């Protein structure tokens, strides 16, 4: 019976947490603040990131429209009406010249009375970069002549063709972006403010206030959007200046968009207002305004921003549709919708298909906003 094992004593100090030690990555993850989690989750969504980059490029470009565009918005080239897009070439007769375009001449086809443009193979017009082009007013503030790309001296550069008045489509697209891309932003700002305040009031107070606001929302939601937009924008006075009309349209777009947002805010608030932190704030004498704004809304702000992003596309499409019908923005203000009014009839599609080009940025922007918003929405809930 003497074969007892020796008593084992571990000399190392006892570590209570030994079993649940975190790897550095885990620690980093668990300790990260919420916004960083969102950022990571968004970053994992490669399509959304790509869409975000595209949108960022678009929005940065509208800051420097004047520099990027080869011509000014309204420069007319009467010699080149409905000129087709010119291709950029690099080699001329097997010899490298750098990017250049061939000059074009037109002749009138006496049978169809159609202008036909033929590139002149002998006339090489090299593009100039970082050059002095047509003078412009930068944001209407100061004069400048510096442009990213200009046609050769005495030459032309219509990369996307020209329209009915011989205006360069590419330049007009770039100028139109300024209007088309901001319409959605201003509209969503209007709708955001309205939606949050009205939905907040409905959700926080409940009862009669809520019931009435709910009915109003139901009514607004049951009206078909476009006819209502049409009716309201037909009501904008004709005497308004184009800039006023622009703001009028954005406000109309925003005015009819808030019900969806208000609904989301309301349903969240109905649940949150029963929470203890809300009661505590109320007992300490905070005003409803403060409770809604400081204590309740931040809980789901990220969700709201994500869903707002998702409703920008419908505004951009709405503006395009209204302008296309001639009820929206009016020349000389140029938006993608205004440009598309030129492509209203079937001849345009058949004879001058490049007039339909403004469709591309519209589609790209709308798609990008959709993907971007989807990514944001997933990221807004990083713990799921």
């Amino acid at each position, binding site marked *: 019976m003497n074969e007892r094992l020796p008593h084992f004593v571990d000399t190392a100090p006892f570590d209570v947490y030994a079993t649940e030690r975190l790897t550095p990555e885990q620690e980093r993850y668990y300790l990260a603040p919420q916004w960083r989690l969102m950022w990571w989750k968004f970053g994992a969504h490669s399509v959304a990131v790509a869409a975000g980059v595209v949108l960022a490029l678009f929005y940065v470009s509208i800051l420097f429209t004047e520099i990027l565009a080869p011509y000014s918005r309204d420069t007319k080239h009467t010699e080149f009406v409905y000129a087709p897009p010119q291709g950029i070439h690099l080699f001329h007769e097997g010899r490298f010249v750098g990017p250049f375009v061939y000059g074009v001449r037109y002749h009138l086809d006496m049978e169809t009375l159609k202008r036909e443009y033929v590139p002149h193979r002998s006339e090489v017009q090299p593009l100039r970069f970082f050059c002095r082009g047509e003078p412009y007013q930068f944001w209407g503030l100061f004069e400048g002549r510096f442009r990213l790309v200009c046609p050769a001296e005495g030459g032309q550069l219509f990369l996307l063709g020209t329209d009915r008045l011989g205006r360069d489509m590419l330049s007009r697209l770039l100028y139109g972006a300024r209007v088309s891309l901001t319409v959605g932003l201003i509209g969503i700002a209007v709708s955001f403010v309205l939606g949050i305040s009205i939905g907040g009031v409905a959700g926080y107070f409940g009862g009669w206030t809520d019931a009435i606001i709910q009915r109003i929302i139901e009514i607004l939601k049951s009206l078909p959007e476009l006819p209502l937009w049409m009716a309201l924008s037909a009501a904008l006075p004709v005497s308004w200046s184009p800039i006023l009309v622009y703001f009028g349209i954005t406000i109309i777009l925003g005015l009819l968009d808030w019900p969806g947002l208000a609904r989301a805010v309301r349903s969240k608030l109905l649940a949150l207002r029963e929470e203890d932190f809300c009661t505590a704030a109320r007992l300490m004498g905070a005003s409803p305004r403060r409770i809604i704004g400081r204590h309740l809304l931040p809980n789901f702000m990220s969700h709201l921003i994500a869903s707002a992003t998702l409703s920008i596309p419908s505004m951009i499409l709405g503006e*395009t549709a209204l302008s296309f019908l001639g009820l929206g923005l009016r020349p000389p203000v140029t938006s993608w919708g205004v440009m598309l009014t030129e492509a209203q009839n079937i001849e345009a599609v058949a004879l001058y298909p490049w007039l339909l080009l403004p469709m591309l940025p519209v589609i790209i922007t709308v798609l990008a906003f959709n993907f971007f918003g989807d990514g944001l929405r997933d990221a807004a809930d990083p713990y799921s």
Partner: protein
Amino acid sequence: MLGFLVRRLMTMLLTLVVISMLVFVIIQLPPGDYLTTLIAELQSQGEQVAQQKIDFLRHQYGLDRPMVEQYAIWVWGLLHGDLGYSFEYNKPVAAVVGDRLLLTVLLNFATILFIYAVAFPIGVYSAKRQYSWGDHGLTFLGLLGLATPNFLLALILMYLANVLFGTSIGTMMDPQFIDKPWSLAKAASVAEHLWVPVLVIGTSGTAGMIRRLRANLLDELQKQYVVTGRAKGLPSLRLLVKYPLRMALNPFVADIGNLLPSVVSGSVIVSTVMSLQTTGPMLLAALQSQDMYLAGSFLMFLAMLTVFGMFLSDVLLAVLDPRIRLGGRARR
């Protein structure tokens, strides 16, 4: 159920009353009235208009009365089936609208059927094969449909329809049938022309529907009863159709309410571009010339269509899902 129906019907009536006021205010919003437009037009043609005649016309049309009274007259007429008088066409609105209403309803109805027919199989497929190439491709296609402005799609399709099939451009029927009474040949001609606008208007609604059906079905497919069913050895198709699909069908019914306004909107703009004989182009013209009863009655009709569609979808939902009608009160 009866209580639910009555309650829902009351809200619908109230909604319609408020909408009628809203519509009336909106069409009154532009400064001036139809007579100002008319006078301006006459003067631009070099005609002199005697003040006396203007006053007479204004009195005749009731434009000199206060707005509330005008509203009362309009609504009173509506209740009696009298849609008012179109200044521009010099005819009662009902006579102007006539045929067009039928075509509008037909167009919207066909579009909704199209959306269901397309969205249903695609939605089920996307959910069943989540993250497959087919899913990604179809979802992207749907999004593309959502992102393309309706009217441009209309233009391009019209062009293609003409080039490929020789369908006459921009109408809803062959020219010889316009303003003719309905016949089989006319109906066939309409059916032949219907697909372009239906396709165009349908594309934007389809994407949203696919998304919702897919999301719903995915939620259902993760539930335990599906696992149980699979463990018991139910065939895959039967397992899908019998339980989860039924549950995921709710959005199809519930969405009539959301779908109708967007389809109606879409049909207005597409009809304008394609100059279909529906109410869309007329509404545009009426709004621009301030032909107030014509525009008002149109807007009212469109709103009525949507409100009624929503009512229908609510009732159907209540029939399908007892939780909804019982929970009507205690939802908050």
